[in-house]
């Protein structure tokens, strides 16, 4: 067994350990409830823990399968996220072909380019080629009604759901001296610090949060975000052995990723509020949709990718 595989198994068992503890706490609380009494907070908590079990299992299995596993998992996540996003955006029948191209050509090609490691191309394919060519396809059908809104929202959907999400598996392409095939572990590092930071931000926000960051948008508080980012930095320091960053580097990278992710989910909350929905979809029980679950990872991924590339390759 290679050392990378051993490290993945260790991370998986540690995650399962945390989940067992969380499930145990939930079951104890449930057993102590009066019979016939339903505690909605506890029910939500348990549904979420169950979804976390599924997610840890999926990401763990994908990591063990290596490159193809991670590529497939995130390509599927992109598809689900794009479907959720485009369900809510402005569109007309004139956009039908450009939207179909988005789903069936742009998305697969982006993942092919990431898979082939063509970093010059996957960095500009959606921001340049899709950005310029898809509006042409829409314009050819000749419906000017809300045109800018339609093409802009389609481009936003592709950037968020395809471009940004694909930067998580793109981490595997980074060639870091002395790190070798362990670049796979950067995926685990990013996902773990951002998601655990979110979870602790939510927890501390509920416990000690007072000052709302954006009224009418999200219940996030400055206190919660501060505690969340500090927790993410500590988790980053604990996980520094799977990264090429060193202890302080890992803390800094984890802090930046977590901070960008938290403000990213504020942006996503603004979009949801505007469209009058609570969740992007219903596909992950207790969490809403893929975009709800991934919003912070989506914002953190490209920045984490570029900072790593800039400082460590």
């Amino acid at each position, binding site marked *: 067994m290679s050392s990378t595989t051993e490290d993945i198994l260790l991370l998986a068992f540690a995650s399962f350990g945390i989940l067992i503890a969380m499930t145990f706490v939930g079951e104890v609380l449930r057993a102590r409830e009066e019979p016939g009494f339903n505690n909605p907070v506890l029910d939500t908590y348990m549904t979420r823990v169950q979804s976390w079990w599924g997610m840890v299992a999926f990401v763990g299995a994908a990591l063990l399968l290596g490159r193809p596993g991670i590529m497939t998992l995130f390509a599927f996540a992109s*598809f*689900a996220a794009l*479907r*959720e996003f*485009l*369900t*809510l*955006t*402005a*569109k007309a*029948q004139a956009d*039908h*072909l450009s*939207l*179909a191209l988005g*789903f*069936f050509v742009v998305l697969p090609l982006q993942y092919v380019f990431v898979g082939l490691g063509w970093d010059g191309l996957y960095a500009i394919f959606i921001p340049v080629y899709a950005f310029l060519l898809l509006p042409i396809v829409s314009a050819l059908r000749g419906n000017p009604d809300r045109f800018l809104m339609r093409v802009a*929202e389609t481009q936003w959907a592709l950037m968020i759901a395809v471009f940004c999400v694909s930067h998580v598996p793109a981490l595997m392409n980074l060639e870091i001296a002395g790190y070798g095939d362990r670049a796979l572990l950067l995926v685990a590092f990013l996902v773990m610090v951002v998601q655990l930071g979110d979870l602790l931000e939510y927890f501390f926000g509920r416990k000690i949060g007072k000052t709302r960051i954006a009224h009418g948008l999200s219940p996030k508080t400055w206190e919660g975000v501060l505690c969340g980012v500090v927790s993410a930095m500590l988790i980053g320091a604990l996980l520094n052995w799977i990264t090429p960053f060193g202890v302080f580097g890992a803390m800094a990278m984890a802090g930046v990723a977590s901070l960008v992710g938290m403000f990213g989910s504020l942006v996503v909350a603004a979009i949801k509020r*505007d*469209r*009058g929905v609570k969740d992007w*979809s*219903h*596909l992950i029980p207790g969490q809403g949709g893929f975009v709800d679950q991934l919003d912070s990872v989506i914002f953190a991924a490209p920045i984490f990718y570029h900072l790593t590339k800039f400082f460590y390759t």
Partner: protein
Amino acid sequence: MGGACPFPNALPFANVTLMKFLRQFAARIVGQSIRIFARAITAVRADWQGIEPVPKQRVYFANHTSNADMPMIWSVLPPALRRTVRPVAAADYWLKNKLRAFVGPEVFNCVLIDRRPEVDDKPMDKIIEALDEGASLIIFPEGNRNMTDDPLLPFKAGLYNMGLARPDVDLVPTWVANLTAIMPKGEVIPLPLICTVTFGEPIHVQEGESKDDFLKRASDALVALAPEDRT
């Protein structure tokens, strides 16, 4: 209907039973495939707003924008409800070729209505007969697919007549959202957008209510389920 017989000399009785079994088996496979396909592409889901998904006799009346409306409603019903539901559909569409003649009557168990004006098919008799056998129904009271920008076309009288003839049956407004964006008329490739089927509170024909009043009320109850368009 039956296809070419593979064993022309076998006993006719055994052959008929075998063919029937194979057809039923094939119908189940095709039905499951349609459901899985609908779920994989549109992540279709049911939103039970006004009623619970329990096995009670109902007439689900829905908006009609696409030929995929009926399979979507059928796909989101839980198995126990799906087994007793019969979509009311046009014979000219479902008997057009051999494949449709298999899928319509055998997979979906449709109540087929002949729409040709020269044939007096007595559609209401067939519908009442299906209700008296205990089936629930899926109907599209607009009669045709809605190609206009209005949310609904005026309803035909059928829904009122059913409600009057069998007042105990729940008439359930059922809104299928997003199918126009998934597959607008004239397009070839369906878009994988999320489709939601919303079931509202059941209505009944009230005593002394006129046909027009009832149809207006039914139509309003259905439109009220449409998601707000904020784009």
